[in-house]
């Protein structure tokens, strides 16, 4: 029985993975034969890669390709970038705080702004990395190195080339690298672990986490391209979107034409350089050496500082939020109130909470609740506490959606009201009896 004929017949029942274009088998056959190890074709391929600036790198019989590019800061149209990076780098160096973005004790030249391109978006064993790129910053500019998996069978050479340049004291700066790129590198490493050095133990800053903290409320998505455009004012011309990478790579493999990947190589190069901008931009915002952008952003910065135990900076971010024009300030008042309360500065805390419920037409229920607590426990003014609790309840009940968190709040407030009413009744009935 002819298996292939049967396969064609049963095609309707099979869930064949969608592929861009399928037919033209002759061409494919040709490509497959070419790829099967014909020396002339090999040389030809190396020449084509050479035209894109890639040089071969050998590990025994395996061959991968590498490219190094150098950009002066002027080339990057940001002559101040080097100075700005130096400045935030020094600030991090002076800050004795365990912050996820901190580069303290990391030599600047060991910071690797890192990104990969893969053959798919899944995270399983069948997803390969075909391009690893990273940027390192020097005094006069930025050096970008790219490693290319020119043939799937050369993975050992590909990773070997990369691992030769990557050491324990390197510090990775990535965008979603903790969840995607690095686990993927680890997965690929398993396949060639007998042929290449072990993976170094290194530090890792993931800027996606930082970007999400700052902008998830204002941006439609925190993809690097969106952040770049909206927050770094970088405009890319003729960019090949990263999502095209898998398809373009298949095209390259089938036709042996590196030119298909030109756009993706440029895209990766731009990505790793953008990470430098982004690192500088976010650090500057944290250290307030840039003009404050918006109330929301200041508040998000404050919250992030609070969470990382950097209270002093948090207070100053919130205060900055109150200085600039814009709505949403009630949150800044509220957060300040919480910090002051924690510091037992009750007067100031009360003032902030009062502000938090009066600056906006839609005050936060939480502000009322905090006021109720302060009045109940600090001032022992049950009537005022009772009043604020009733207001909190009114606020909560007026809200559109009742989440489970809100429901719990309502329950708590109702309990508080009951307790306060008891206390109030207790004192008044005592008077009546006497």
């Amino acid at each position: 029985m002819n298996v292939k004929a049967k396969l064609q017949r049963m095609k309707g029942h099979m869930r064949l993975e969608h592929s861009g274009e399928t037919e033209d088998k002759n061409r494919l056959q040709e490509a497959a034969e070419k790829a099967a190890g014909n020396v002339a074709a090999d040389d030809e391929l190396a020449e084509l890669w050479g035209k894109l600036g890639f040089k071969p790198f050998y590990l025994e019989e395996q061959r991968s390709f590498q490219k190094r590019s150098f950009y002066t800061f002027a080339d990057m149209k940001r002559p101040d970038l080097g100075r700005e990076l130096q400045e935030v780098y020094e600030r991090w160096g002076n800050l004795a705080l365990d912050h996820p973005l901190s580069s303290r004790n990391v030599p600047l030249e060991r910071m690797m702004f890192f990104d990969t391109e893969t053959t798919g978006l899944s995270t399983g064993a069948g997803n390969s990395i075909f391009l690893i790129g990273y940027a390192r910053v020097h005094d006069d500019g930025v050096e970008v190195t790219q490693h290319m998996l020119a043939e799937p069978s050369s993975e050992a050479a590909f990773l070997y080339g990369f691992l030769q340049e990557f050491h324990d004291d390197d510090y990775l700066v990535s965008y979603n690298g903790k969840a995607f790129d690095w686990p993927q590198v680890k997965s690929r490493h398993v396949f060639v672990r007998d042929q290449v050095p072990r993976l170094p133990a290194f530090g890792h800053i993931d800027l996606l986490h930082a970007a999400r903290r700052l902008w998830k409320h204002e941006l439609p998505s925190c993809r690097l391209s969106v952040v770049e455009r909206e927050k770094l004012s970088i405009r890319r011309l003729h960019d090949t979107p990263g999502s095209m990478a898998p398809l373009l790579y298949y095209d390259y493999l089938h036709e042996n034409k590196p030119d298909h990947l030109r756009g993706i190589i440029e895209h990766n190069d731009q990505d790793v350089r953008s990470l430098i901008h982004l690192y500088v931009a976010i650090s500057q915002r944290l250290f307030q050496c840039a003009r404050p952008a918006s109330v929301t952003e200041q508040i998000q910065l404050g919250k992030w500082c609070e969470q990382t135990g950097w209270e002093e900076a948090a207070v100053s971010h919130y205060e900055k939020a109150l200085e600039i024009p814009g709505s949403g300030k009630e949150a800044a008042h509220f957060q300040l109130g919480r910090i002051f309360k924690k510091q037992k500065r009750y007067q100031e805390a009360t003032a902030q909470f009062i502000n938090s419920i009066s600056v906006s037409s839609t005050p936060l229920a939480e502000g009322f609740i905090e006021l109720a607590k302060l009045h109940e426990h600090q001032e022992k003014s049950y009537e005022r506490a009772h009043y604020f609790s009733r207001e909190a309840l009114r606020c909560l009940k007026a809200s559109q959606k009742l989440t489970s968190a809100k429901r719990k709040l309502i329950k708590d407030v109702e309990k508080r009201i009951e307790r306060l009413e008891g206390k109030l009744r207790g004192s008044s009935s005592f008077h009546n009896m006497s």
Partner: protein
Amino acid sequence: MFRKQTLSEMIEELKKDNRVAYWHEIEEQPASIVPFPDKMDERIKAALEKRQITGLYTHQASAFASVMNGENIVAVTPTASGKTFCYNLPVIQRHIHRPTARALYLFPTKALAQDQKSEINEFIDDIDIQINSYTYDGDTPANIRQVVRKAGHIVITNPDMLHSAILPHHTKWISLFENLETVVIDELHTYRGVFGSHVANVIRRLKRICRYYGSQPTFICTSATIANPAELCKELIGENARLIANNGAPKGKKHFILYNPPIVNKQLNIRKPATKVVNELAASFLKERIQTIVFSRSRVSVEVILSHLQELVQGELSRKTIRGYRGGYLPNQRREIERSLRNGETIGVVSTNALELGVDIGQLQVCIMNGYPGSIASSWQQAGRAGRRMDESVVIMVANSSPLDQYLFQHPEFFFDGSPETARINQDNLIILVDHLKCAAYELPFACGEDFGGTQVEEILEYLAEERVLHYQRNKWYWMNDAFPAHNISLRSAAQENVVIIDQSAVEKHRVIGEMDTFSAMTLLHEEAIYLHEGTQFQVEYLDWEEKKAYVRKVDVEYFTDANLAVQLKVLAVDKEKELGSSRLEYGDMMVTAMATIFKKLKLETFENIGSGKIHLPEMELHTNGVALSLGGEEIISLKEDVLEQLLIGLAHVLQHVACVRVMCDKGDLHAVPEVKAVHSEKPTVFLYDRYPGGVGLSDSVYKQFANIVADAVHFVSACPCDNGCPSCTGLAGANSGLSVKTLIVNTLAEVIGR
């Protein structure tokens, strides 16, 4: 004083019932126990002694010895025979011997895995050694998953998770695969047909990954009684396995009763519907508060029986004490029902074969089957639900009018003495094989000349490269596609997608109440269909075929619906053929097109037709294997068309039922279709085909055994007490004045086998 009757009193009463066609007593059997093996660690012995266990049942001891010898085993163990020790003891012993050793347990369902985890953990606690056992399934939280990967000595999961979550991510499971010493496959007999064929390929992938990481695990399988456990095991794991069948567990006395409902229409040989009889029998036990389980074959009949029972015992028992249990229920609901069965809150349960598996529901006293469950193995599994411990128990099988049931009741020896079914898989079914080759290539590139569990796959790999799923380079095939193949492949169902059932009774609170495969949905979830879910009637208001969603609303009506499926067949290629008298039998590739046409509304009480409607759904196509019997012969050609039609319908009916017994499969897996003038031969033809795309080997088996099947059919039809054919032999209400379909069928078939 009024008091409840006991089970033995009810047994005495049943003995006087003249509808009992056959009474089979299975005597109690004492335990057969041997001392602990010398090789067993003292700590294990101590833990067993702590549980008042002073020796092993013979089968447990054999299992232990073989596994310690490095042999694969398949242990055939009836319900409640202590099968878990067959694998837990050797696995723990191996761990004591080499503390880095890992084991992988596969259970067919998540519920069984959960059960097992608690059981083995309790035992490990008694031994006081450091063995981490975890379940790994869809519910395992992400932070625990990491721990399981790195430190789980025993990982308890199901084939679906192995297929879609573990193997495709093997690089995260290095320490498991490097140290994997034992693979346990429980309930082996459930891995048959399509599901089994898928799982066999998942095991091929597992072994391929193990080889890559340098491990070669031993397989320990356990199975319920089937005819070919060792053969099935060999096909599933791709290696030989020693059969362990010396069961030493004690058994209580069991009464197995075949109960044939009375004939209500003598002329047409129509019996009282089995469902009604089941209702009455079950109610009589439930009224005495005797825990009873009722098995019924279809989801619909489960719901029908459930609602009747709940009504019958109303007032005496609360509604919650009788529950339904079937596949379409959501997991939480099922867990809750299992719990209430165990703690005795629920005394009656009506189930599909979903409860055949070893889910622990404690012991019930009575098991009633609504009709023959379709296979001998299934029957014994269901019967095992009654009397799990040493008490007396009763199993009643109530026959319905189908030829299969009546055939069995005519020949009880076939059931009690005959061998149970052979479980079949076809691991090389082309569609299934291609699916798993994709997954395997995703996991690890294929080298030139590499086989897949002994099957040569080069041609398929070339095909996949042409389709640009794989890329060939330097003698290897690499996965080059951005898809994650395992996510598109379900091990459980042939249909690609399930239809989700959404209850929109409450306007702002739509909720999903179940799901169903697309093929069944055509006839059960068409618009206006009455869908029953836990005794509640729902009407389908809108079926979104594109999106695979059925919107239903609660209703309270007096009828249920039954839909017709029009089926057409095309022969695509003939692989084998032979002449049989003036007829011809062919085997090959076929295309089946099915279309739901109309549905009837039938009254619940009387089954009377009270209305009908059209179904508007697209045609569905199925490429599969089948056999075609084309009739020649002058007598046939001279028949009038309406007579011929009746003859063919009767033939299809008889052949399907008898063939299912011969090739030992479920009636739903082998379909029969008659055509007065088939496209390929232009002759009157009866087709039998595999219900699954690509076929699972049933029609091939039919082709090989065809002479026997025809002989059985002749014997069965002639032996039926009716005159001219009846619903239970020829399937026709029959007796068209003067026409004996029965004689026609017998003559036609006799000619086929040259008698």
